[in-house]
């Protein structure tokens, strides 16, 4: 029994273990317990066990209690600490939160900045690619502004081809691209407008250029008069042996430089360049030439009042010259802008105009001094043009024409000079009171007379001051003539010929003309005319010296000139002298007419006064005193004058007898006329002037004498008997004249009432009628014979 019990207790232990060890599936264990019937014992054992466990738990709880309290205590401690920690952490968190907030901000900023940075970088990059375009463009603008069109054009090209493609996607670039052709056009226009400015300027300046060129020429002429010829002969510079280039610069003289100095030619070159670059060089050439041609036409149009003063001519020539100097310069430097042919053509067109202008305008000129100035100007003009290589022969010819005109003008001037001399001239022999005065006259006029030389002062020359004055003036005239011919390149022969011709004209035409206007003056007395005759004779004698004078000047052989001189001298002053001689007769006749007008014949005079009529006595006395006063009158002139006076008196007297208005003439009146005629005949016979042939004055009264004789002697038988015979006593009495006078006498006879009553008177009357009849018959046959 004990082993059986112990076995049983062991089972129970197992069971409990089983239950303790498992949490569930307690069923089989319970069943096994319940199946073994010992449940009470098990219960006891279980209780025992629970009790044991409780004890264990109690023991254990007792054991762990202090620890437990400590732990709780500790736990409490931990809890507060944890709480503390927690707040700390929260605080930390907020502070962290706060501090990180700024960081966050900064970070954001940083991010932004980074972004901006990146953008900037990108911008810079793109800008850098655009920049050259813009700089080029601005360069272009600048160049345009500075009018450097050619570089501008280059820049434009660069811009177009190099830079713009790189930045094609910008709007401005496309705009630029669009504007390029416009710019090009602008450049073209701008350069053209520059050219236009140039053309305008050149028009203003070209006169100055011409003036400078002419001044240079004149300076050159002063420095070296031979330079023109040298220049002409100077060959063009030989080409440089190294480069083969013709050294142009050296060849250009100062004038070219001046032209360049005066005006900037660059617009032309630039424009030419630009147009060449733009491929329209041809257009440009045509344009330029056309413009210049138009300018030439303008330049060649002379100022309207050019002929008035030298300034007008100067202006004209300066402009023309300036024009051609410029063209020459352009020809030389213009790179073929104009060529020789063009210029030659232009020049030949111009030269015609110039010639015409100078011709017409100089023709208006009436001032010799001005003409000389013009001539010098033209000479300078010609020389300068020739220096520039223009052919000037035509202009030169005009100069010759102007010279002819100049001589005409000179003659006009000398008309004034002569007139002045003549106006102031008293036509009295020149009187000198001192040796100086004497020398002055002798030096002015080639005259020598020993008697005069030795005679005491005051001395009287045979001629009036007119002679030395005119002689001097002729010399002056010759000098003046010469002045124009100077450096005209004429041969001595030509000059000589010209002077001779002009002098001849001056004396035969101008001087004579002036004298004849003097003759027309009513105040000019006979004395003066006589002195003029004397003067012209002295002048004529001095012609030889004038000839010598001309020969000395021109250097022509004196033989030739003297011979020519004598030919010319024959009528140099001769015309004037002839005129003066004619005048003396005219003046005398006019005086005689005045006497004749005073005639107061009573044509019905019964008895003559017994002495000559007073007008005839006065007239004869006047003639006598005139011819005795005029001792200076050269013999043959006096003779001619005296003859013409007698002829005139005779004619006047005859005219009175035959005058239609005198209807009746009494025998008494006829006797009175006879008395007067006798007076005249006495005068004629008295040899009032020496050197006349005997009877040469009387012959003028023959007609009248025979007529008077016939009627006084009533010698009709002889008249009819001798009629037609050469030695007839009444040869000069024509039947017609006789008829006229006879009829007048018949009329006068009718008045005497008583005559009819007397037989003798009746017979006389009958006779008269018969004579008249016969005379009429004679006249009839005479006229028939004539027919």
């Amino acid at each position, binding site marked *: 029994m004990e082993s059986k019990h112990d076995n049983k207790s062991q089972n129970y232990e197992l069971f409990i273990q089983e239950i303790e060890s498992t949490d569930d599936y307690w069923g089989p264990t319970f069943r096994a317990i319940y199946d073994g019937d010992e449940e009470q014992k098990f219960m006891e054992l279980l209780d025992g066990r629970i009790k044991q466990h409780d004890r264990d738990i109690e023991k254990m709880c007792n054991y762990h209690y202090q620890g437990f309290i400590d732990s709780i205590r500790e736990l409490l401690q931990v809890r507060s600490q944890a709480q503390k920690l927690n707040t700390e952490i929260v605080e930390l968190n907020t502070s962290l939160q706060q501090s990180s907030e700024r960081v966050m901000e900064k970070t954001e900023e940083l991010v932004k900045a980074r972004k901006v940075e990146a953008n900037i970088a990108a911008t810079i990059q793109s800008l850098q690619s655009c920049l050259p375009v813009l700089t080029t463009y601005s360069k272009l603008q600048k160049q345009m502004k500075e009018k450097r069109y050619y570089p501008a054009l280059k820049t434009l090209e660069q811009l177009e081809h190099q830079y713009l493609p790189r930045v094609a996607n910008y709007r401005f670039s496309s705009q630029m691209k669009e504007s390029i052709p416009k710019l090009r056009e602008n450049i073209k226009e701008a350069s053209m407008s520059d050219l236009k400015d140039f053309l305008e300027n050149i028009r203003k300046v070209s006169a100055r250029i011409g003036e400078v060129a002419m001044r240079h020429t004149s300076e050159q002429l002063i420095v070296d008069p031979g330079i023109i010829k040298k220049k002409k002969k100077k060959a063009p510079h030989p080409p440089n042996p190294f480069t083969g280039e013709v050294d142009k610069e050296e060849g250009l003289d100062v004038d070219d430089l001046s032209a360049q100095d005066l005006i900037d030619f660059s617009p032309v070159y630039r424009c030419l360049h630009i147009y060449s670059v733009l491929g329209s060089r041809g257009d440009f050439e045509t344009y330029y030439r056309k413009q210049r041609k138009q300018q030439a036409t303008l330049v060649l149009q002379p100022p309207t009042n050019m002929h008035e003063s030298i300034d007008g001519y100067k202006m004209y020539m300066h402009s023309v010259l300036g024009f051609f100097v410029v063209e020459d310069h352009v020809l030389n430097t213009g790179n073929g802008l104009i060529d020789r042919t063009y210029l030659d053509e232009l020049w030949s067109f111009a030269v015609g105009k110039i010639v015409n202008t100078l011709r017409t305008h100089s023709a208006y000129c009436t001032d010799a001094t001005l003409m000389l100035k013009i001539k010098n100007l033209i000479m300078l003009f010609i020389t300068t043009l020739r220096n520039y290589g223009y052919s000037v022969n035509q202009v030169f010819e005009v100069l010759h024409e102007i010279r002819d005109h100049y001589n005409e003008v000179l003659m006009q001037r000398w008309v004034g000079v002569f007139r002045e001399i003549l*106006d*102031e*001239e*008293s*036509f*009295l022999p020149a009187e000198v009171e001192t040796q100086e005065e004497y020398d002055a006259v002798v030096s002015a006029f080639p005259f020598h007379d020993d008697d005069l030389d030795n005679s005491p002062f005051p001395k009287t020359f045979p001629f009036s001051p007119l002679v030395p004055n005119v002689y001097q003036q002729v010399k002056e005239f010759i000098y003046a003539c010469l002045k124009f011919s100077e450096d005209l390149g004429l041969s001595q022969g030509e000059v000589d010929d010209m002077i001779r011709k002009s002098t001849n004209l001056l004396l035969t035409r101008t001087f004579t003309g002036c004298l004849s206007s003097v003759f027309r003056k*009513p*105040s000019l*007395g*006979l*004395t*003066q005319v006589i002195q003029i005759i004397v003067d012209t004779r002295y002048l004529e004698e001095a012609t030889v010296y004038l000839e010598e004078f001309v020969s000395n000047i021109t250097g022509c052989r004196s033989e030739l000139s003297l011979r020519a001189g004598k030919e010319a001298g024959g009528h140099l002053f001769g015309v004037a002298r002839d005129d003066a001689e004619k005048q003396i007769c005219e003046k005398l006749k006019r*005086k005689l007419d*005045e006497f004749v*007008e*005073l*005639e*107061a*014949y009573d*044509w019905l005079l019964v008895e003559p006064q017994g002495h000559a009529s*007073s007008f005839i006595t*006065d007239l004869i*006395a*006047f003639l006598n*005193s*005139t011819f*005795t*006063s*005029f001792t200076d009158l050269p013999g043959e002139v006096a003779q001619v004058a005296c003859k013409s006076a007698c002829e005139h008196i005779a004619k006047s007297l005859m005219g*009175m007898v035959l*005058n239609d*208005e*005198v209807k009746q003439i009494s025998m008494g009146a006829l006797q009175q006329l006879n008395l007067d005629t006798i007076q005249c005949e006495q005068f004629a016979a008295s040899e009032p002037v020496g050197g006349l042939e005997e009877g040469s004055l009387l012959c003028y009264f023959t007609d009248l004498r025979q007529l008077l004789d016939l009627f006084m002697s009533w010698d009709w038988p002889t008249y009819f008997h001798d009629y037609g015979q050469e030695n007839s006593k009444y040869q000069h009495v024509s039947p017609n004249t006789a008829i006229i006078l006879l009829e007048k006498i018949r009329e006068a006879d009718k008045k005497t009432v008583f005559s009819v009553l007397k037989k003798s008177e009746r017979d006389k009357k009958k006779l008269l009628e018969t004579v008249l009849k016969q005379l009429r018959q004679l006249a009839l046959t005479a006229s028939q014979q004539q027919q």
Partner: protein
Amino acid sequence: MAKTYDYLFKLLLIGDSGVGKTCILFRFSEDAFNSTFISTIGIDFKIRTIELDGKKIKLQIWDTAGQERFRTITTAYYRGAMGIMLVYDITNEKSFDNIKNWIRNIEENASADVEKMLLGNKCDFPEKRQVSKERGEQLAIEYGIKFMETSAKASINVDEAFFSLARDIKTKTEKKLEASNPPKGGHQLKSYEPSRKQTNWLSKCTIL
């Protein structure tokens, strides 16, 4: 031929050289003036017809040379003269002084009844005057003749002088004609006897 005038008076201009005789004549005959001095040689004359009281009078005026050398020629013309103009230059004392010589010339050569007149020429030139008008007047009174100051240049009194002289001659001539026409006789002598006396008497006065 019908006579173109009623009277012909011959007048004579005398006086020193340069007093302006020719100019006076030129002014009277042509109404012109020429300032250049041209001395007359020998003798010259001009004719002008004037009208006085409806009568046409031809004046033949002889212009004589003042220069001594022509004296013989010129004195021959005194006799025929019916009126004589004695001319002096108011700017030339000597020409005035010489008037008495000219008067003597007249007395010696001219007919006794010649009408005379004294002219002081160049009165347009007062700044150079040497002979006062009063002296001229005085001298004229002494000789019992008329006096005028003239200027040929300014045309002062030239016509007046000639007209005055011509009128005096005309009056005298007409008186003579009246006297000689119906009762012919010795009246003629009487007409100019007194004038002769007068001049003589006056000239004596000057000598005294």
